[in-house]
């Protein structure tokens, strides 16, 4: 029974849109969860948006359609929403407030927890370490996700960020240790929700997934609850049940827009672009719930996906997210236009904790060296491409032309991947090596000589290069990347 002992308030002064204004209340606080009973006996739910003297403004999650103020009764729970926690969530598909969409009974738990949660005490935090392998080659090799990390995906409308989020959720593993995924979809269209459900069906059937789907037509206040429910469930699966939990939250921009809408309904003073002034701390209260706790098994790793309106990385949502999180995976419209999936802009992407989760003893001895060399070579390749746009490919030096071939191999062989293809880290790094070996050995200065020998890196052939200065001579070695239709390119088809 609630703290109020089961008292229901029956004076509903007004119904306006999704809001019900309940009069004659006492001792009611913000964010209290409300159970609303209609005259017909139908049950609805709400959250207190505002409380002033004896008035409470309640946002009705299911909307106020068909409600007659005369027969409405509102019972206040005495606190914010609580949800049951435990392994019963695994394999379930629920809406954004945790009610079943899969035809099953309500989700039960041996205990419940407040969805607001509390960020982990900083002194009890264990530094993130060990990787979560996503099965997406370019992410695992270049921006390795580390257990306990928060690594957002920055995208723009029209790019396949939801596909990438679903692929990561479907494929991610933690080297055989107990692992599960909580996917919180926010503001999804019904088509997107259906896509996510299909893409994650296998994992769901295996009892390794909790799927929360808040669709675009669901109430905005529910959208604010969805990531909190997801994180509350994840925390208990991780720190009580000892699992490594990956929480994928898509799309956080629609979450922030819901926050803006609720803030406006509360009459708060708007800040940048009308988002509430507490957007930063609100986002932090979500993102900071990930991590590892000293003396407890398991970890919570968070991958929020957000779309940057008009591709503006200085927009408040990506801007503030970038302050809180530990790196970012940026998707690029240019790479997408070249037909590469996932269209990750490797040079703008970064996992700040990668060194804690990759390299000797964690992934592969050569991982960090290969990643560093790939990024360095890609940076040079981009400069060369800009130069080639100005002076033409024929005017480039032979070495520079090899950088253009490297970039092509990088995109077509290394980065490009089917959206249903789980690619192991070894296979990804080998593809990385293959792309790097399109460059002369002298250009691979970040790789130790032993590794270069082991992978058969060749010195630059000066004669061949000299011949090519005058024209596009055909190289002797058919494997040479000088051929635009190189085997690397063919291999990627």
């Amino acid at each position, binding site marked *: *029974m609630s703290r109020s*002992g*089961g*008292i*229901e*308030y*029956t*004076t509903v002064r007004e119904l306006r849109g999704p809001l019900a204004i309940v*009069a*004659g209340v006492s001792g009611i606080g913000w964010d209290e969860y409300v159970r609303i009973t209609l005259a017909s006996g139908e049950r609805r739910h709400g959250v207190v948006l505002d409380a002033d003297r004896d008035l409470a403004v309640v946002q009705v999650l299911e909307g106020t359609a068909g409600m007659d103020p005369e027969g409405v*009764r509102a019972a206040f729970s005495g606190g914010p929403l609580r949800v*049951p926690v*435990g392994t*019963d969530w695994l*394999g379930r598909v629920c809406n954004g407030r945790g009610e*079943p969409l*899969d*035809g*099953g*009974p*309500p989700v*039960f*738990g*041996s*205990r*419940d927890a407040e969805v607001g949660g509390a960020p982990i005490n900083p002194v009890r935090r264990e530094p993130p370490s060990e990787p979560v392998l996503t099965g997406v080659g370019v992410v695992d090799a270049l921006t390795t996700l580390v257990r306990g990390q928060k690594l957002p995906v920055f995208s723009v409308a029209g790019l396949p960020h939801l596909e990438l989020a679903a692929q990561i959720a479907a494929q991610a593993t933690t080297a055989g240790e107990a692992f599960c995924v909580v996917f919180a979809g926010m503001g999804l269209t019904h088509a997107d929700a259906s896509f996510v459900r299909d893409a994650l*069906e*296998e994992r*769901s*059937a295996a009892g390794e997934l909790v799927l929360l789907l808040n669709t675009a037509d669901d109430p905005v206040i529910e959208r604010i609850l969805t990531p909190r429910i997801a994180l509350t469930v994840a925390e208990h699966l991780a720190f009580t049940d000892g699992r490594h939990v990956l929480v994928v939250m898509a799309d956080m921009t629609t979450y922030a827009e819901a926050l803006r809408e609720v803030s406006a309904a509360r009459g708060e003073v708007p800040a940048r672009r009308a988002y509430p002034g507490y957007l930063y701390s609100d986002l932090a209260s979500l993102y900071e719930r990930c991590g590892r706790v000293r003396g407890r098994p398991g970890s919570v790793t968070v991958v929020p996906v957000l779309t940057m309106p008009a591709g503006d990385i200085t927009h408040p949502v990506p801007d503030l997210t970038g302050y809180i999180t530990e790196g970012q995976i940026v998707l690029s419209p240019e790479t997408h236009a070249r037909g590469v999936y996932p269209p990750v802009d490797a040079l703008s992407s970064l996992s700040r904790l990668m060194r804690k989760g990759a390299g000797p003893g964690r992934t592969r001895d050569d991982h960090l060296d290969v990643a560093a060399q790939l990024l360095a070579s890609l940076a040079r390749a981009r400069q060369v491409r800009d130069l080639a746009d100005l002076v033409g490919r024929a005017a480039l030096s032979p070495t520079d032309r090899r950088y253009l071939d490297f970039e092509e191999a990088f995109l077509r062989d290394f980065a490009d991947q089917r959206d249903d293809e789980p690619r192991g880290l070894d296979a990804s790094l080998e593809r990385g090596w293959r792309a790097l070996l399109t460059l002369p050995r002298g250009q691979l200065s970040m790789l130790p000589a032993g590794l270069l020998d082991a992978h058969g890196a060749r010195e630059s052939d000066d004669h061949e290069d000299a011949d090519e200065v005058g024209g596009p001579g055909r190289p002797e070695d058919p494997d040479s990347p000088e051929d635009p239709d190189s085997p690397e390119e063919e291999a990627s088809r």
Partner: protein
Amino acid sequence: MTAAASDRTANALHPVRTGLLRAAHADAEALLARADREAASLVEQARSDARALVAEARRQGEADGADSARDLLVRARREARSRTLGARREAYGRLRREAAERVGGLCATEGYAALRERLEQRARALLGPGAEVTGHADGGVVARTPGRRVDLSLTELADRALDRMGGEVRRLWEP
């Protein structure tokens, strides 16, 4: 031309004819041999292509089959899971209905008057002594003051008790 002259000419040309014939035979044999070789090579190439095609078709077939098998497995799992969840929901619904029926049966027991008295006291404690308390059709009481209401009907109390059971309900389908 006389017959003798004709014979002489034929004799003189005999080596030429023989040579030409030999050369023609040799050419023909070489041609045949080459044709045989080419035919054999073509047949071998065709066989090799056919083997490659069959292997590719088999590989594709296996891949398609594996995809179909995986789809079938996923669908079967989804169906099985859906039926399991449906059965659990049904069991849970039945529990709630039975609890409501059983608790309704308390009305006919000897202790009901005392129970109702306690519920009335509880209602007045919550809403104040001036609350209007009436009996509920399903047993128990409902109390009202202007703007407030307390539902202490037996069915409502049973519902709340079931809500508090939480994870214990799982014993319906777990050993």
